[in-house]
């Protein structure tokens, strides 16, 4: 049952082969057994999960279950959960029991999901390895000496180790796609504006977007469909009808299900920098796509190399503004000893934030300060437009873009801990997608030389979620990379 897909779990719940309470207990027991080593969860909410499961069972008995009623999940700890500790991976919020639910959490509660707890993450979603978490890093289930990726590393590790069938995440520069790739699962970041940011603790607001993790594109489609929808409390939420992403996937697969699909391969993504084992797995996956009927065409994203520098101006600038709310007055950590008000602010923030968060706040403060705004912030925003225009030009020649999700497989814990710039460069293929606001998906494409998973990234035009999910689903119907499990899943 722990390996079952969401449609299989749905059938089992509806047929009363298992109750929602039994299903929740199954996963809670796995968390008890495996989380001490994997550290994928910061908070496990057994009591809340069982209460939600009992409610789900009542709903199933009443015949009013929806697609996700009774399905257990993990929420990234970036999402506020009423009555449950919400830390965002930070000492700053280590005492914050949220008085309200994020919009995403409300939607998924209403859908009848059963939250098992809160998944580990890089502090305030700033990091690519999960090592900036105040609670220590989550570990990669395929090799616990390796990082699970970040910032949504706990969510990805939980799904990969089957501590939860699905999980929520957030993606500002690759924080869903990169850990999905490193942990051998599927993850999607939708078009900016589809998932409400209300109650999702802000890092860089023009880039932050909620996303979904699952073992397959089909599971991601079901979760994402339940997370999206207009929310007037988010000023950038899009007023669009919601889409039933899973419905398009349900059609039977013809022999060549991707006939006519044109896949663009950005020359810059296949240049130097990609490790040989990643290249081999990605090339083999692309051959499989061609066997399914797709054609590939070379495209170009000439400004893609500028995505990282532009991101490390825009994201810190927005972070320095967003994180000014943590002042030790209304919520969060306050220093024990202080003199005047300025001293209280300075000490509370010095104690509450970790090193990487402080660095990004300082970079952002500098680039927004008097005299530097034009040279840094405006220049980065101009590059952002060039990067977005590159994607639009490339998408004139193809229906979606494919390439590696990451340049290498998961690195060793501690390997880049003292070199932030080196770690930033590992997000080279994912960051441009956030700057443009496009949807991106990562799915398992095989394994590297060290037995660690490799991810293939698919990028689509705005609102092309169905196309991305369908392409990945057809790939997964013809292959079994997504069905491989790490050793801790017996």
């Amino acid at each position, binding site marked *: 049952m722990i390996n079952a897909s969401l449609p299989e779990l749905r059938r089992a719940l509806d047929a009363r082969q298992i109750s929602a309470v039994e299903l929740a207990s199954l996963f809670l027991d796995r968390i008890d057994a495996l989380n001490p080593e994997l550290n994928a969860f910061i908070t496990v909410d057994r009591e809340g999960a069982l209460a939600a499961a009992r409610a789900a069972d009542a709903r199933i008995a009443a015949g009013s279950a929806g697609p996700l009623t009774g399905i257990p999940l993990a929420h990234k700890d970036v999402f506020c959960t009423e009555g449950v500790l919400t830390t965002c991976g930070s000492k700053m919020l280590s005492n914050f029991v949220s008085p309200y639910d994020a919009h995403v959490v409300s939607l998924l509660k209403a859908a009848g999901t059963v939250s098992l707890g809160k998944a580990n993450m890089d502090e305030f979603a700033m990091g690519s390895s999960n090592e900036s978490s105040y609670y220590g890093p989550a570990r990669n289930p395929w090799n616990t000496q390796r990082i699970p990726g970040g910032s949504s590393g706990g969510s990805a590790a939980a799904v990969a180790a089957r501590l939860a069938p699905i999980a929520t995440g957030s993606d500002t520069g690759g924080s869903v796609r990169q850990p999905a790739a490193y942990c051998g699962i599927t993850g999607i970041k939708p078009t900016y504006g589809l998932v409400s940011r209300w109650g999702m603790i802000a890092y860089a607001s023009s880039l932050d977007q909620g996303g979904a993790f699952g073992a397959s594109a089909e599971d991601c489609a079901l979760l994402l469909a339940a997370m999206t929808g207009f929310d007037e409390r988010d000023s950038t939420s899009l007023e669009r009808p919601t889409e039933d992403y899973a419905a398009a996937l349900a059609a039977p697969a013809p022999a060549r299900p991707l006939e006519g699909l044109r896949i663009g391969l950005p020359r810059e993504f296949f240049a130097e920098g990609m490790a040989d084992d990643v290249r081999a797995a990605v090339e083999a996956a692309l051959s499989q796509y061609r066997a399914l009927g797709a054609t590939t065409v070379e495209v170009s994203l000439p400004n893609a190399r500028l995505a990282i*520098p532009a991101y*490390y101006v825009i994201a810190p600038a927005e972070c320095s503004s967003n994180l000014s709310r943590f002042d*030790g007055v209304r919520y969060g950590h306050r220093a024990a000893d202080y003199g005047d008000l300025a001293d209280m602010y300075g*000490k509370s923030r010095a104690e509450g934030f970790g090193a990487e968060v402080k660095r990004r706040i300082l970079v952002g*403060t500098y680039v927004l300060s008097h005299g530097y705004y034009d040279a840094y912030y405006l*220049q980065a925003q101009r590059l952002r*437009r060039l990067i977005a225009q590159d994607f639009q030009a490339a998408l004139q020649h193809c229906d979606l873009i494919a390439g590696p999700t990451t340049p290498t497989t998961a690195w060793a814990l501690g390997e880049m801990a003292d070199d932030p710039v080196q770690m930033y460069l590992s997000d080279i293929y994912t960051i441009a997608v956030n700057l443009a*606001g496009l949807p991106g998906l990562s799915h398992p494409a095989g394994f590297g030389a060290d037995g660690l998973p490799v991810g293939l990234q698919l990028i689509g035009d705005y609102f092309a979620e169905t196309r991305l999910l369908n392409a990945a689903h057809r790939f997964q119907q013809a292959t079994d990379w997504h069905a491989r499990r790490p050793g801790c899943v017996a």
Partner: protein
Amino acid sequence: MSLSNEQVGHIARLARIALSDTELDATRAKLNGIFGLIEQMQAVDTTGVEPMSHPQELATRLRADVVTETDRRDAFQQVAPQTEAGLYLVPKVIE
């Protein structure tokens, strides 16, 4: 570009983050590494390119000027470090 300790101290004060003298050197070295990365932007001529602040071309939504939230002050103040009589307490600012 290379930041001095004085500049880093100034930014830290603006950001309201206390930095000890020992932290200053290490922080400056890391920040200079990050700015080394960021400087790559300056080589690009972006004359005439409109800055892009946001992925979607959105106009700010307007709503009626009416109260939509309920009073949940007690719940919100439960997570505050120090409150009294519905007020947030901070060190005295005005003598």
